[in-house]
């Protein structure tokens, strides 16, 4: 028999194993790999935030790259122009993104579904223009690039315990810390009264209103929280990439990456977005770094697959194939398989797969 409790225990044990592995990771990996994992973590954080909005509350946004950018610029500018160290900048960036989220969330109340996706697309497209107009950094452009001194960790951080530099190690552990705190926060949010309200509003707004849920407040709050997650992710990204920048393509692509991580990981699941972020980052690096080294024997295909411009094509095609095979994401597919396994073990078909978000 596999009981619900056992399932929970298995989940907890696996989380601890994964966490220990992640803490140990920089000792095993070089700088490049460690920073790649840091990237997985911050994209995962942004995708988790988007999940609160899209997965649990049913509002689709394709503009969260903008909130990510607000976080990144806030931290980068405070560090670059005002000499702040990283951690205090979070105390400004997080509330600021929350506030911007509230501001965007209010008009979003009147705009539903498809139109909301469009309006949020506006965020992604406008944000780079806004930074170009109002941020004048390196050579008058909107690129804020940070030097070693500005990025160095505070004095209390011990010297590097692993093979990689103290800066990179610091960047990684900051991302890991943010991810752990925000995963726990997401778990608490999802299981709280507010979490149930999110789902109730998603599934049936008028019915939710009839049992006393203030649907408008819930939706604005969902927007603000997801913006906060994306903003913190953006702040963390500065430590990894050493810059804040907003190009049109890049901001749009980031917004899409969050959504993709969410969908291929599994909407309305807490770990799904993190898994999805890992898949997205790994897949992209595999396509752009690993694959070209192995196509030498493919003859005419070499020219096509070896071309760096081809990686988005492969990414796009894989994305489409992925949702053909696992439309409810990795976690959804795993849940179905697990439910089947549990059912077979118990010989009683009462564990229906958990309902998945639309």
């Amino acid at each position, binding site marked *: 028999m596999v009981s619900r409790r056992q399932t929970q225990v298995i989940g907890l044990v696996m989380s601890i194993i994964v966490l220990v592995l992640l803490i140990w990771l920089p000792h095993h990996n070089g700088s490049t790999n460690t920073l790649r994992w840091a990237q997985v973590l911050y994209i995962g954080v942004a995708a988790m935030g988007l999940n609160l909005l899209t997965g649990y509350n049913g509002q689709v946004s394709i503009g969260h790259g903008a909130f990510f950018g607000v976080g990144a610029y806030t931290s980068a500018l405070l560090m670059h122009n005002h000499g702040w160290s990283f951690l205090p900048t979070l105390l400004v960036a997080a509330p600021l993104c929350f506030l911007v989220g509230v501001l965007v969330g209010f008009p979003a109340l009147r705009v539903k579904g*498809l139109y909301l996706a469009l309006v949020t697309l506006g965020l992604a497209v406008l944000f780079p223009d806004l930074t170009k107009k109002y941020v004048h950094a390196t050579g008058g452009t909107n690129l804020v690039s940070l030097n070693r001194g500005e990025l160095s960790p505070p004095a209390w951080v011990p010297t590097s315990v692993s093979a990689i530099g103290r800066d990179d190690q610091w960047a990684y552990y900051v991302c890991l810390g943010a991810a752990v705190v925000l995963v726990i926060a997401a778990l608490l949010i999802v299981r709280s009264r507010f979490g149930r309200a999110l789902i109730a509003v998603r599934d049936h707004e008028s019915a939710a209103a009839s049992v006393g849920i203030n649907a408008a407040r819930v939706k604005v709050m969902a927007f603000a929280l997801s913006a906060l997650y994306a903003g913190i992710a953006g702040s963390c990204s500065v430590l990894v990439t050493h810059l804040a920048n907003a190009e049109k393509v890049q901001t749009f692509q980031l917004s899409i990456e969050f959504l993709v991580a969410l969908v291929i990981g599994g909407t309305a699941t807490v770990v799904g977005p993190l898994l999805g972020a890992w898949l997205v980052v790994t897949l992209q690096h595999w396509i752009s770094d690993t694959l070209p080294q192995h196509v030498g024997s493919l003859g005419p295909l070499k020219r096509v697959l070896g071309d760096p411009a081809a990686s988005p094509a492969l990414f796009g095609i894989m994305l489409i194939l992925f949702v053909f095979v696992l439309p409810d994401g990795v976690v959804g597919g795993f849940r179905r398989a697990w439910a089947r396994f549990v059912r077979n073990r118990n010989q009683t078909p009462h564990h229906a797969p958990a309902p998945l978000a639309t």
Partner: protein
Amino acid sequence: MSLFLTQLMNGIGNGAVYASLALALVLIFRTTGILNFAQGEMALYSTYLFWYFTDRGLPVVVAILAAMALSFIGGALVERVVIRPVEHSSPLVLVIVTIGLFLALNSIVQVQFGSDIKTNLPRAYPKHTWRPGNVQISADTLVLVGMLAVVCVLLYLLFQRTKIGLAMRAVASSSESARLSGVPVGQMLMFGWGLAAALGALAGVLVIPQIGLQASSMQSILVFSFAAAALGGFDSPVGAVVGGLIVGVAEALTTQYVHALNGIVLIVPFGLILGVLMVRPQGLFGRRTVERV
């Protein structure tokens, strides 16, 4: 005053392009209920085909027709191969699939045709500017507006006067009832996507020679076209045309007169969308609010 009229004409010319692409978006939305984020990139691919044909020495008009015909086939195939397997999936999956298509097409053109900007696109008509009074009217504007008018008339005739048009409207309204009446729904959906792709191709080959052909050529045009479709209502072809013209004119006048918005003119389409949606969520001419996605 003449400056104002000149800008107005420019706006109308651009608006005609937005309107054409918005019509393609509406066509696909009405038949399959999908917001096609790849519409602009499909038109981009078509324009590269056009460039390829003319580069090989085909006459301009033949190249346009060939690009449109191939785009029609390509659009129909996209519906059958990429969209059909997920047509009943969650809206999020549909967004992901069309975005996957966007990324794929955008990079395929670079691999296939090179990522350099193509400046040697032949024009289908001579460059000319008329100056009645002090108002400047370019041949571009006239051609684009004329193209839009012809497209509108042809679409009207197709949908109101032909059997296949009637069947497409039936599928858009209720695919189940249409199917029960013996209408081959799948073929109609392919036809709709093909038509939209051909329409996008026409808009692309006419506008891109003015701005230069590269991988990012269609992206801001697509954004303005989305604004046009949302403004007019996603289920309304008339709305798409009116919305396109409004967005084009608003863009031109803002660029000219509102210096505070220099560099952030994209605020205009999104401001318009947001403003209209606050008052009338289904758009100016739409009847249904869009609940999908």
